[in-house]
């Protein structure tokens, strides 16, 4: 951890960066994002097993960007988010200084997107066994049961949009939900509005979701939103050979095609 603190201190002193986005101690046993702008603030940096939040979303936050040159402590999910954001022209190469803490505690600095791509190439980026089994449990249900399941979940939704705000891929300034001509998605957080919103969001993240789980973690009503997008990851990989957030110049699964794409339902 000291290596991290020293590195960031040095980067700040060398004016290599103006602010470093990392983890600090939060309320009770929580971890929170901190924005280190001075050498002494660097002392607040921590890193441990609970530092799982995907900080990549902050790279696009207006006020954070305006602090100057950014450095970030990225976990695997954050690295993938950055690749996906790059492929969608939201961040540019070598615009951000990226640090990564290896399992042995040592630091890796990623100088370019290429180096990140190479690293990701040899990293497990799949969803967890637990998440897999939850999806399989749902898939084992009948259509009707699944409908009931999601309806009860979506009923809880209060449309606070924490899922959207927490998702690094939900960077649109004007989300479809905010479009009112026509009002595609009802603003109200009644069952219809909620179902529409979550289906729309899942579709818009299909092929873009890097399974960081921020949406589900953010939800104050404990809705397992991540499953919606997670269950699309495998099919999209199988059907189109595409995985989000692995390459900075990757083509989006739904804006490309192969003439030989297979399906079994179009007559």
């Amino acid at each position: 951890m000291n290596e991290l603190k020293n590195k960031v201190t040095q980067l700040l002193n060398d004016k290599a960066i103006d602010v470093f986005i990392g983890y600090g101690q939060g309320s009770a046993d929580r971890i929170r994002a901190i924005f280190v702008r001075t050498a002494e603030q660097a002392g607040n940096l921590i890193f441990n097993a609970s530092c799982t939040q995907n900080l990549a979303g902050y790279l696009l936050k207006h006020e954070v960007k305006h602090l100057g040159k950014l450095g970030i402590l990225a976990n695997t999910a954050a690295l993938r988010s950055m690749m996906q954001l790059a492929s969608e022209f939201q961040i540019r190469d070598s615009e951000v200084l990226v640090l990564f803490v290896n399992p042995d505690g040592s630091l890796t600095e990623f100088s370019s997107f290429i180096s990140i791509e190479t690293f990701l190439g040899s990293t497990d980026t799949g969803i967890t066994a637990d998440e897999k089994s939850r999806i399989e449990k749902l898939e084992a249900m009948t259509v009707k049961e699944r409908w009931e399941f999601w309806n009860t979940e979506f009923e809880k939704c209060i449309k606070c949009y924490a899922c959207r705000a927490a998702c690094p891929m939900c960077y649109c300034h004007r989300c479809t939900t905010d479009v009112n001509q026509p009002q595609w998605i009802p603003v109200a957080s009644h069952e219809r509005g909620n179902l529409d919103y979550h289906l729309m969001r899942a579709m818009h993240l299909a092929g873009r979701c890097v399974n960081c789980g921020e949406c589900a973690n953010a939800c104050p009503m404990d809705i397992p939103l991540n499953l919606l997008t997670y269950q699309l990851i495998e099919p999209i990989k199988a059907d189109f050979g595409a995985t989000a957030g692995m390459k900075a110049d990757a083509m989006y699964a739904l804006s490309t095609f192969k003439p030989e794409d297979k399906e079994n339902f179009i007559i």
Partner: protein
Amino acid sequence: MEKELKKLKYSDLSKLIERFGSQGYAVLAPVHKGKIVEIEAVQSLDAIALDVLLSTQSAKKAAFPKVEKVLEYTLEKAGVKQQAIDPGAYGETILFGVRPCDASGFKSLDAIFGEAPGDQFYLRKKEKTTIISFSCPTADEYCFCTSVGGGPGNTEGSDLQITAISKEELLVEILTEKGKKVSSLFADLLTDAGEVDKAKFLADVKVVFELDSVVQKTTSSFNNMELWLDQSLRCIGCGACAFVCPTCACFDFQDEQNTKKGVRLRLWDSCGFSLFTLHTSGHNPREVQSQRWRQRLMHKFSYMPEQLKVVGCEGCGRCSRACPVDMNVKEHLTSIGQLTI
């Protein structure tokens, strides 16, 4: 009215719920929903989560639901034909097992919706709602009710308050006429309490800041953008804090219609959203999140005390618990309290 102190056997508690039901009261109470606790209609005591610290959402939805129909209309050749909704078309409701901060939270809402001419949709519902709160035997690090003038046994806003004084016995404080009326439904189960030191049974919540100074320093910090930016850098601009808050009263009107008919709905809204203040022109007076965060605190700790003579916070800490990025209001207020101006 003069407060009355009674005792009730814990074992009789379930009878209350049954009687309320049989007397045509709808009973809303905290209910376990997986990891969260919702406030919902219940039929029996065992459905109620009396053990929980706090429900995930506040009790405000009893009188200020997240979606509320205020108007219906049909689009006819001649023009739009409206059908008004009767704001009074709600049954008597008992809000049961909520915490003192939920009950006292209504005083902010009363102040806001009560301003002339008065918001009938809120007022008529509130009118028909009797609040039976349970004082707090425990608290967590997010609680700071005592710093904003409340407390674990605060009776403000409650019609009845119940405190567990032993495994078998409950202290029942009858606080209002409304409370009296409801208590008459189980008068036969009540015995005189005599002298009880209620404080013994309450959680210990430390005072962490001095309210008046926080109010005054908040007010004078309007232009201290460095402060607001510092506090809100990690804020991602969702509405979680506002939607779980017992005193947040901002709402939006939305028409939902097809080509034939429509309804006008009142929906919760949040000053944390960038869209909240976006003008049609594209101009946004609160362009960045720090301004929105400032607005949130200013509204609760400066504008409301100034204009409505009430602080817009009960110290329940829900906003901090719900926040995806650990924005901790108690901590922020404390630091404001420590400002030297």
